[in-house]
Structure formats: structure tokens, C-alpha cells
């Protein structure tokens, strides 16, 4: 099998090309020693089966960022038949710099000048014949977004592959390559740029989008829209999937497993099957989230958000893109964590991943709405809820500020502000599809195992009442009492927290089981069981303590670092205890 690798700078449209060529078949490849997810796909090109690999977008082959290292590691260890260099034609004048570096590697290469339509609108023309004459390398003009020129380029690549053999580049000539002079020369020979560029529609949009007053207002409106979309569309979708799985369970699974002993069918249904349905309920959320994400990102608005929020975010060691992910985390933490992949500097990404689980997600909101209504006087309940949102934001800001030195990014901060573009439906849909498959592949085993484990803890030893204090979980609850009674959380509420670890939205249902009540009567029982100080402490603790199992699975699958995942569990737990203790002690003192 032949192998081609796509190489290009950020914003050259490389991923659009990859998606256009490979479609839904692409998946994440595994190569020894390669620490970053790279997409790969197999396609038929002419007479050859070809593996296409999408390398991360990089500015400099000779640089020191993680992505640049990954590209060198990949090319140094995995022989390729052909390098396909993608260049944004509208920015060819500077993007050809990477081409000049790549040329020193001695690997067969083809150059694709992408976004030919955009360059044409700017009046920029590229003389491909002159380019080939001076470099000896074939060039094509394409639009990966609309597909123009792509079939011809692919046919040519298929043709070229007949004469190539896999080769591993030599990096010897890279450092010594004369870039600046050669770049000027090549640009002079092959690119024709008008002296004055026509005013772009992007400038007109930016006049509003980046306006000192109007800009932030538009940003808040856009975020409110995105947040509400995740929230209002996502929650019913999630319930719908949940309902479907419940129906399947009672209609098919329960009758089917009836011959089995009660403990076995209980484990299979309430342990394994509920684990599977937990995974499934995240699927619509992830699709929806990445649909919106692709819109925000591909349109070019994300980097505008970074611009608007930078004055504030840079003080807590983050940039504006982290802010967007944090806001999305208020809908659901899981896709927000996956979304941090757009931040290529790893320390910046990890710091963002550390604060996202502190966002008050829609699952936690359900718990707070229930407890708030059950225990707080009606006029206080909304204020209690608002204060939880404020605590959530404060906890995120405090955490980022405290850990900003530990996760200091050494990568130079210079972000491109690409022109506004309309995303294509195809690209948006593929994004959702790839992310869902990624989540299911990476996180589902962990989630199912976790749900099954909690079932076992609450149902063993054999013969105890489910989730009673006699169960193993109940025993864990009583061991934890010395730790949790100072914040007003008793053994039964501790059990509820254990369930909350599976998924926050199951807490209310779990409490109904723990207190032996129907959900309808649970409110009154809770009101007798907890005073306001206890309830508020319990809500604060629920807000901040260990993120849910799916979030935890995503933290691990995205960071691939157990030490980081441990920190992301331990720190919120400590913070939750401290905050809940302050609130419980303070409110109890006030009540006396």
C-alpha cells in the first residue's frame, strides 16, 4: 500500500481537503511514538490503494512546538511515498516558506494551491507553470471546500504514485535552508499580488464583531445562542434517547432476561445496559455540540472571540478560546473537553481541561432545581441557583489562576484571524460523525465499567437491599462519615454522591431509591431530612466534586495522562470540600 501525507500551515484548508477526499471512512490512526491524534483513511487512487494521513497544521518544520515535533517524528519514522503540500493560495506569499522547508527533505512532493476561489477574488494569481519551472514540482489549483480541481489533482497524484517508492526524509538540510531570500524570489517568480487589496467583507463584519462595545455584546449574544441550543435542543434529545433505551429495556431486555437469577439480570440490565445507555445519551449532545463548534470555528468567529476575551483571559493564563469552551461546558462538560483540541499548545489545553469540569452543566442543574424547589423557600430558590452559577465561574477562574504557572504555555501567542467563511454542511456533518465515533471508541468501556462497578457496590453483598447502608456502598458511605459529616452530608446523602459520580442526572432517581420514596414524595422527605445549610452545602459539593464518569473518561482519553486526570479529580474534590465546609459552617452559625 502507498502512503501520502498532507502537510500544510494552519488555516490552509488541509482538513477540508482531507474530509473531501476521504469522507466518513477516516479514523484516528495509531503509530508508535506519535502522541497526537492523526486522522487517516484508505482510498483508491488510480491503480493504488493509498493511505492518506492528515498531519497537524504547522508553521515551521524546524520548530519546537508539540505539533511540529509530531510532524518530524511521523515523517522520520513512517516512510511516505508522496508529500502533498497544501497552501492557501491567498496567503501563498508566506505559506510557501513551509514548502521551501519541506523541499529540503528529499521526499517526492506535489503542491496544491487551495482556496483558489478566495485568491481570485483578492486578485491574487499564481503562475503554476513558472512555479513548476523554478522548483521542479507539480502544482495544482484547487478549492477543497467546493471540490473544484480536486479530481484532476487526485488523478495526477495517482499517476505520480506509480513511480514512487516509500522514503524517509533526511532532516540534515533543514536547519541550513535559506528561507527568506528564496521565499522572496519564488514569490516574485510565481505570485502576482495586486498593490492594494480590495476592501473585504470580513473588514465590514469585523467593524461590528470587534467593536469595543458592540463586539462584546454580539459575543454574549452568540454565546447565549450556542449555549441555549446545546441546552434546549440537547436536553430533549438526550431524554429521547434515554426514553428509547428505557423502552427497549422494558419491552425486550427484561422479558428476555427473566429466566436468569435476579442478581444476574439485575447486573446485566442495571449495570451493563445502563452503562451502554449512558454512553448513548451523550451521542446527540456531542453531535449537536460539534455541529455548533464547526459553525463557530469554520466561520472564523472563534478567533474573534479569542481577540475579544484576551485582555481578561491572558491574566489567568488562558486565551479566549478556553472561554468559549468553558461556556459550552455549561451545557455539557464532555464535548467541551473534546473541543479543547483546537488549542494546539498542550499546557494551554490542559489548563482549559482542568477548569471545564467546574462548569455547572445541565445535568447538575436538574439536581439543583429539584433540591432548590424541595428545600428552599420559593423566593430564595432562584438566588440560590444564581449563586451556584457564580460559584461555578469563580471556581473556574480561581483554578486557572492558581495553576497558570504550572501550565504556563511556552508557545508564542500569535493567532491568525482568518476571513469569515461560510462552513459547508458536509464538513459540519463529518465533524459530528468523527467526534461521536471518537467518543464511543475511547470512552465507552470506561463508562460502562464504571456504571457496572457502582451497581455492584450498591447491590453486594448478595441479599442486601439495593443502595441500603448495609451494602458495600453504604459501608463506604459510613467510612467517609468522618470526612463528610463536617460539611453536613450524612451516610445516605453520601450514597447519593456515589451515584452522582456515574452521572449527575441520576442523583435524584438514586435518592428516591436510597430514601425508599417515589420521586414525587422525595421532595418532602428531603425537606425533613436536610436543613437549608445542609442542602446548600450538598449542592455546592455536588457542583464542584469529582466530575461525572463520562467527563472523567473524556479527561483521560483526551489528556492520555493519568497524573493529569488524577489532579483533575483530586483538586475539585478538595475545592468542593473547602467551599462546602465554609458554606455549611457559615449558614449553620447564621441559623443559630
Amino acid at each position, binding site marked *: 500500500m502507498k502512503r501520502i501525507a498532507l502537510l500544510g500551515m494552519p488555516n490552509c484548508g488541509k482538513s477540508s481537503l482531507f474530509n473531501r477526499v476521504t469522507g466518513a471512512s477516516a479514523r484516528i490512526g495509531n503509530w508508535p511514538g506519535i502522541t497526537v491524534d492523526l486522522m487517516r483513511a484508505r482510498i483508491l487512487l488510480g491503480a493504488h490503494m493509498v493511505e492518506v494521513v492528515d498531519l497537524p497544521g504547522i508553521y*515551521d518544520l524546524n520548530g519546537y512546538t508539540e505539533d511540529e515535533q509530531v510532524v518530524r517524528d511521523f515523517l522520520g519514522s513512517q516512510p511516505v511515498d508522496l508529500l502533498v503540500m497544501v497552501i492557501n493560495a491567498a496567503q501563498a506569499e*508566506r505559506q510557501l516558506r513551509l514548502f521551501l522547508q519541506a523541499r529540503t527533505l528529499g521526499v517526492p512532493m506535489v503542491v496544491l494551491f487551495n482556496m483558489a476561489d478566495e485568491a481570485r477574488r483578492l486578485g491574487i494569481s499564481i503562475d503554476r507553470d513558472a512555479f513548476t519551472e523554478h522548483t521542479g514540482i507539480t502544482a495544482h489549483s484547487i478549492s477543497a471546500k467546493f471540490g473544484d480541481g480536486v479530481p484532476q489533482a487526485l488523478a495526477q497524484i495517482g499517476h505520480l504514485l506509480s513511480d514512487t517508492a516509500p522514503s524517509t526524509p533526511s532532516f540534515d538540510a533543514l536547519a541550513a535552508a535559506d528561507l527568506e531570500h528564496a521565499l522572496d524570489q519564488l514569490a516574485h517568480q510565481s505570485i502576482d499580488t495586486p498593490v492594494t487589496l480590495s476592501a473585504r467583507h470580513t473588514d465590514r463584519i469585523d467593524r461590528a464583531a470587534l467593536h469595543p462595545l458592540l463586539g462584546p455584546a454580539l459575543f454574549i449574544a452568540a454565546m447565549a445562542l450556542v449555549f441555549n441550543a446545546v441546552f434546549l435542543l440537547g436536553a430533549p434529545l438526550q431524554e429521547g434517547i434515554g426514553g428509547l433505551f428505557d423502552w427497549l429495556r422494558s419491552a425486550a431486555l427484561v422479558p428476555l432476561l427473566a429466566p436468569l437469577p435476579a442478581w444476574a439480570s439485575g447486573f446485566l440490565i442495571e449495570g451493563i445496559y445502563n452503562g451502554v445507555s449512558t454512553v448513548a445519551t451523550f451521542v446527540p449532545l456531542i453531535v449537536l455540540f460539534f455541529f455548533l463548534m464547526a459553525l463557530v470555528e469554520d466561520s472564523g468567529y472563534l478567533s474573534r472571540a479569542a*481577540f475579544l476575551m484576551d*485582555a481578561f483571559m491572558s491574566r489567568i493564563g488562558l486565551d479566549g478560546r478556553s472561554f468559549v469552551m468553558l461556556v459550552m461546558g455549561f451545557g455539557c462538560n464532555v464535548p467541551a473537553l473534546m473541543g479543547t483540541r483546537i488549542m494546539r499548545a498542550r499546557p494551554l489545553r490542559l489548563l482549559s481541561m482542568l477548569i471545564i469540569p467546574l462548569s455547572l452543566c445541565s445535568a447538575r442543574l436538574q439536581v439543583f432545581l429539584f433540591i432548590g424547589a424541595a428545600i428552599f423557600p420559593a423566593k430564595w430558590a432562584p438566588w440560590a441557583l444564581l449563586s451556584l452559577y457564580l460559584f461555578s465561574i469563580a471556581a473556574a477562574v480561581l483554578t486557572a489562576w492558581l495553576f497558570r504557572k504550572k501550565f504556563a504555555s511556552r508557545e508564542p*501567542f500569535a493567532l*491568525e*484571524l482568518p476571513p469569515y467563511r461560510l462552513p459547508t454542511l458536509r464538513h459540519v456533518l463529518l465533524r459530528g460523525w468523527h467526534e461521536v465515533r471518537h467518543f464511543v471508541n475511547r470512552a465507552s468501556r470506561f463508562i460502562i465499567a464504571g456504571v457496572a462497578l457502582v451497581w455492584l457496590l450498591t447491590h453486594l453483598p448478595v441479599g442486601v437491599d439495593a443502595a441500603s447502608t448495609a451494602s458495600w456502598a453504604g459501608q463506604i458511605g459510613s467510612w467517609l462519615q468522618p470526612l463528610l459529616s463536617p460539611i453536613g452530608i450524612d451516610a445516605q446523602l453520601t450514597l447519593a454522591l456515589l451515584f452522582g459520580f456515574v452521572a449527575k442526572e441520576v442523583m435524584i432517581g438514586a435518592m428516591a431509591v436510597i430514601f425508599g420514596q417515589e420521586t414525587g414524595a422525595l421532595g418532602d422527605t428531603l425537606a425533613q431530612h436536610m436543613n437549608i445549610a445542609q442542602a446548600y452545602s450538598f449542592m455546592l459539593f455536588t457542583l464542584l466534586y469529582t466530575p461525572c464518569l463520562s467527563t472523567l473518561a473524556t479527561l483521560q482519553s483526551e489528556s492520555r495522562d493519568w497524573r493529569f486526570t488524577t489532579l483533575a479529580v483530586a483538586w475539585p474534590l478538595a475545592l468542593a470540600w473547602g467551599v462546602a465546609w465554609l458554606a455549611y459552617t457559615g449558614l449553620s452559625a447564621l441559623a443559630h
Partner: protein
Amino acid sequence: MCALSELKTGQDATVVGLRADHDFVQRLHALGVRIGRSVRIIRRGALNGPLQLRIGTTDIMLRRTEAALIDTTETAVRA
């Protein structure tokens, strides 16, 4: 000569010096910020926020502390 961060918004200028460390200079080169190139501040972010710069057909945002490491001279306005 003045630092890029001190340049008036909308004023065309030519890059004459880069005082940043090696990695950052490489990144600036890749983004098109090179000695002899023309650069312009399109806008300044509120509350001491970042700068929006235009170099050729590329717009980038740069924090003011980093822009202070780039030396420029104002380009005379062409009639």
C-alpha cells in the same frame, strides 16, 4: 523608529527589527512578519487587549507585550 505596539492605528509601517527570541522570530516569519515587510495595526483590543495586525493578506492578533519586541518605521503615505 518606534515599537510596533506604539504605532498609530491605521498607520502603515515597515518592520525594521525583531528583538524576540528565536522561536518567536521563527513564528513571526511564518506569519509573514519579516524585516522589510509592511505592517499595519487594524485595531487595538479594549482594556489593553491584543492588537489586530495586517501583513499582506494575513491578519493576526498579537499581545501588546509581544508587539513591543517588533521595531518599525512609519512608511510615508503614497500620494
